[in-house]
């Protein structure tokens, strides 16, 4: 009796309509996901940043920001941009730091601001960039892992969307030349 009910259900119009909707909906969903993935990889993506290394620019608890990928691809990143990069230490992790110097520029940095005042200077080699967090006391950046190859840069953060009171573009800093 249950089998008869099952048979009648499978041959019913409702079931066939549902099947048709599914075969229509799945390709549409796949196309949508592909489109979304392409946009995320090449145009614009939303990132959640957290951690103390970019205080006061980006907060300690998460900030949702928009990052664009066009500047990295066309090499239009400038000193003072907040960038996303793949960490040279932990390849699966994407970190947010500020671009402080590009190839050929000479950068002077304080090695360990918590313990001493010593600073060092070096020239950023070809094909590399120097990144630092805004909060140099709590930032694991180029001062620890050295200049970063340009190929590791993933995007430029340009707009903050959460929390709502901080909605707006990120403040541009002039990098190493700014007066503190």
């Amino acid at each position, binding site marked *: 009796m249950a089998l008869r009910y099952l048979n009648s259900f499978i041959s019913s119009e409702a079931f066939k309509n549902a099947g048709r909707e599914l075969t229509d909906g799945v390709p549409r969903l796949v196309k949508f996901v592909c489109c979304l993935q392409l946009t995320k990889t090449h145009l614009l993506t939303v990132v959640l940043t957290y951690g103390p290394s970019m205080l006061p620019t980006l907060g300690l608890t998460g900030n949702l920001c928009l990052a664009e990928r066009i500047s990295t691809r066309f090499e239009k990143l400038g000193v003072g941009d907040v960038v996303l990069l793949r960490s040279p230490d932990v390849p699966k992790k994407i970190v947010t730091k500020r671009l402080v110097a590009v190839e050929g520029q000479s950068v002077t940095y304080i090695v360990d601001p918590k313990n001493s005042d010593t600073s060092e200077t070096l020239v950023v080699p070809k094909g590399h960039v120097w990144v630092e967090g805004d909060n140099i006391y709590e930032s694991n950046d180029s001062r620890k892992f050295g200049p970063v*190859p340009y190929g590791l840069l993933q995007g430029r953060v340009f707009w903050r969307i959460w929390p709502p009171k901080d909605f707006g573009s990120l403040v541009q800093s002039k990098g190493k030349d700014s007066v503190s």
Partner: protein
Amino acid sequence: MRLLSHLKQWRAVATEAKHVSFAVAKFIGLIHLTESYLCSSTLLHGPSMLPTFNSSGDVVLAEHLSHRLGKVVPGDVVLVRSPDDPKKMVAKRVLGLEGDQVTFFDPNRIRKHNTTVVPKGHVWIQGDNTYASFDSRSYGPVPYGLIQGRVFFRVWPPDGFGSVDD
């Protein structure tokens, strides 16, 4: 009026063009996604990977899954974004992962051996042709994040058709 009938024709052409361009965009998008995440073909040239790959140009297939899953092992030929010139992609062989000890000839002084430990998050890449290869012996270990894919099959020249394995 002739102008009105022309406008109607243009409208039909515009709709047709819209449909065709959507179809083309979808196709290109699909090809691009396949090339970025699954399998792509590349032309390799240069002497740094002799005798494995010809200097005049080999067409190979590279897969883009292994490095995302962390399954790159020493002995793999990988495509890497050059640390010197970010627009350039090079093909080299991975000789050491993070923590491995690597021994190599210093390219400037042939008789001298050097040994280094590959730092965390980096790999050591070398061309098979040690005499004509600009690789980790010159620019040091490269971050794992620069690896773009793994070469696994050669398509051209026909007498080299087959998988690329050590």
